[in-house]
Each structure stands twice: as C-alpha cells, then as structure tokens.
C-alpha cells in the first residue's frame, strides 16, 4: 500500500478532521481541525469528502518523505514549503513523485497549515471521527502527535484530472434484473456522454445492457447518482435537477462525491464505470 514517512515531526503535527460532535454531554470535546476553513479547502481541492482526515501542522513544518507518488494539497498559513528543493504553492494540486520530500520552515502569516493526501488514509475512527484528541490519547494516529519514523498508508484514489474519468459504481436496488452478461459488463464499461444530456440527467451512449425487465410496475424513489435503465438498454444517470421517482430499473448508483467528477465531463466525453 502507498505510504509516507515522517522524517521530522515539526512542532505539533497531528491527524485531524472536522471533529466529533455532540459528545460534550460525556465531557468529550469536539477536537478536529483548528482552522476548519483551511482544512476544507485542502480537502475540496482534491475532491475528498469534507470529513476526510488530513495532517495539521503547527508553527514549525514537519518533513515528510513520500514513498509513493500521490497528489497533495497544502492550505492555511505559509510554512515556506519546498518539495525536494523547489518551492510549492498553497492551494494547488501538487504532483508528488515517489521518493520526494516535503519540508518547510516557520509559519508565516498564520500559525497552522493542512496537508491533504489524495487517498483514503488507513486510520480508524474513534467516536465517528479521525480527529486526534491528545489529552485522552484517542483518534488520529495512535491518539498522539506524529513523530519521526511514523508511517501513514493510504489507499489510492483514481486520478480524475488526467486520462480517463473513472468512477466507481455500486449495485442498485434492481441490479439483479440485469442479465449475467450485463452484470459483468458493468465491472468495467466506458460510455460517451450523450449530447441530449442536461441538468436532470446524463444519457449515456455505448453498449446496450440486457435486463429481464425495463419497466417497473411502480414508480420508485431515485436520487442524484442513481443509474436507470430504460428499454433502450442505454443507462441514464440522474443528476442535480433530476426527478425524485421513476419507473425504470435502478441498476446501479454512484456515491455523491463522484457526481462532481461526472458533471465535469463535457458532452461527447467519455466516462468509465467500474462496479465495486
């Protein structure tokens, strides 16, 4: 699994997220990013969920060695960051190569910075949050601040800014209506975005999918991201202005965060779906 290693920990470097809410009743504080806006910016630039974990740096920058290539973003105070020896900018997607080292100096114009990594960090939630709560020794990375030699692993995220637009999909309520062949096809299938698409829905052009039925007896609920299969055998993806019910089988769906990627593909562009 891809990973990074902490070479120097900086002054106070921890894993944080948006914190744990509603536990003050049990005298558990929220913890979480000290500058939530900056943390959100770093995450959103990578199209990560707002509640994903990231690294919070305080006053003095850590030195981080990336064992594997990955995209990162940095936000918050300016720690005069350099990747190997080249200065890197805040608020941009940075392509880190395997073996690169990120380091910095003292914080300028502020006190805290955030480093987000484009992957699913292999950490466990405590009380539904990744936030490190130092006093109790819970959350984040073993409940403590990061120190020399710590290794943080992540599971890769598809690189959606270059090459094919790949989007994971999940079986929908009527997935079982699909023929076995169609179920296999969905494991890796590329469609073209039809020019008759709009804010309600994307009409996909490409392979027709076989189903034992293309009409449901009743109109059933659909949400943005649901994939319907009308009798033409060509799927439709419901989007932000989409209907809330419909009578075509709901063969699959994509999770909300992937709508942003899908909606950036121009008409005539290609999207690759992979059933997980």
């Amino acid at each position: 699994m891809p990973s990074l290693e902490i070479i120097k920990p900086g002054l106070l470097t921890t894993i944080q997220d948006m914190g744990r809410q509603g536990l003050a009743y049990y005298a558990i504080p929220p913890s979480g990013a000290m500058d939530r806006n900056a943390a959100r910016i770093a995450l959103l630039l990578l199209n990560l969920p707002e509640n994903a974990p990231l690294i919070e740096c305080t006053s003095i920058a850590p030195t981080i060695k990336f064992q594997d290539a990955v995209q990162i973003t940095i936000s918050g105070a300016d720690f005069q960051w350099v990747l190997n020896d080249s200065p890197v900018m805040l608020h941009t997607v940075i392509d880190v190569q395997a073996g690169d080292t990120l380091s910095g100096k003292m914080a300028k114009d502020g006190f805290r910075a955030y480093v987000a990594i484009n992957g699913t960090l292999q950490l466990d939630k405590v009380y539904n949050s990744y936030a490190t709560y130092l006093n109790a020794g819970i959350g984040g990375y073993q409940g403590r601040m990061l120190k020399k030699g710590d290794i943080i692993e992540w599971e890769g995220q598809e690189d959606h800014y270059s090459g094919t637009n790949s989007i994971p999909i999940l079986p929908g309520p009527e997935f079982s209506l699909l023929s076995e062949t169609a179920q296999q096809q969905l494991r890796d299938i590329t469609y073209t975005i039809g020019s008759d698409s709009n804010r309600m829905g994307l009409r996909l052009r490409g392979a027709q999918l076989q189903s034992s039925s293309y009409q449901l007896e009743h109109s059933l609920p659909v949400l943005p991201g649901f994939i319907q299969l009308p009798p033409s055998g060509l799927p439709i993806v419901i989007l932000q202005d989409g209907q809330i019910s419909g009578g075509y089988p709901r063969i699959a769906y994509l999770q909300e965060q992937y709508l942003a990627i899908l909606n950036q593909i121009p008409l005539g562009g290609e999207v690759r779906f992979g059933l997980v």
Partner: protein
Amino acid sequence: MTSRSLHLNNSDFEVQNFNNDFLLIRATEEGTLATLGKLIFEKKFDFIDEVIVTEQEVCLKLNARFNDTRMELFSTLQPAKQQVTNTYRLPIYFADHEDWKGVTKSAGLGKEEVIGQILTTDFTVAMFGFLPGFIYLNGLPENLHVPRKSVPAKYVKANSVAIGGKYLGLYALDSPGGWHVIGQVPVSILQFPQLPPLPLNLEDQIKCVRITSEEFAQINAQQLNLIDYNA
C-alpha cells in the same frame, strides 16, 4: 446491501441498507408505508438528508451521522391522526396528441372509449413524485395500463395528463417524460413558493371532467388554480 425487518406501530417493514448511502423501506402490508414516510420526514432526523415517499418504497438518503443503531429511533415515532380527504374535479381537454396512437393500440379501444372509461373512474392521489407538482393517480382500469415509452420524450408540456403503467399522471412542469400524453389541463396545481408546493394530499379523490378546446382557452385565460376551479 443488508436487510433487516422493522416492527413499528403494529406494522412490519423491511429495510434495505445500501452501504449507509441510502435506505429503502417497504411495507409488508398495504397502506402503512406513506404514514411511516410522513412521520420520518416530519421528525427531521439529523442523520437523514432526504425522504422520498412512493407507494411501494420509502427512500431515505443518509449522511455521515448515520449508523445502524440510529434506526432504533424510528420506534419513537407516533402515528398521527387520520387526515381528511377532499374530492377535486380535474378539467381535461383531450386534445389530439401523437401519443394517443400508442394508447388506443395498447388498449385495443378507440379514443372515445378510452376517454369514456377515464371519465367514469374515481381516481385517488397515490403519490407525488418525479418533478414538483407531478401527481400519480391510482384507479386506472387495467386495460388502459400502457407501458412507459422505450425512449422518454425530451419534452412534455406543463399540465399534460398522461398514462404511465398503472397510473394516470399530471405533469405540472415542462419536462422530459416517458408517459403517453392524452390531454391538457387549463389550471395550474403548483403554488410556489408555498410548502407543500401543491394543495393536494395523499388519498384525495380526483374526478376527471371533459372540457372543449373553447372551455380550455376560457379557463386558461382566467389563470385559475385547481382550488379556484373547484370553488
């Protein structure tokens, strides 16, 4: 996807959880689902972002605050008192529309016979859905159940009455649509920005009334809504 059963207010429900993204709830007996959906919607649970109620399924869009144990909160829901139902007349001009071909062919009847059957049917508001103001009406005679189109039409005019499967429906907005259009209504049922955006309730009764093209133009010019028309 995981399934579990739920017992609430002497009714049994089946709940499917799709990866904590959304829940689908189905009732094991008729008539209990809409009530449950309404109670959940009105309770405004913090772990639910959207509630969609249809005749056969309730869909709950979940957020990160959800976990399986939160479902136990459904047992705190108390049934509301029975609602009064109203009866409304829905004026329809059965204009010539290309979709009539599919309807008469599927039904094996002429246009006049189809209209006759619709005018003598008592319809019930089964659900709201699709787009704002779209009404699904139950009661359509079985021989008039026409499957939805293979390729949905890109444009259906606002206030079109159409047949889709077992339902008679009303499109309140211009939209794409897969149903077969058989007529036009001269009154609007939408009342933006009020909530709910239309004056009907589930189980309200609808009686279709035939009007001529002249009457259509006349009522249309008065810009009445459904309530004014029925007053």
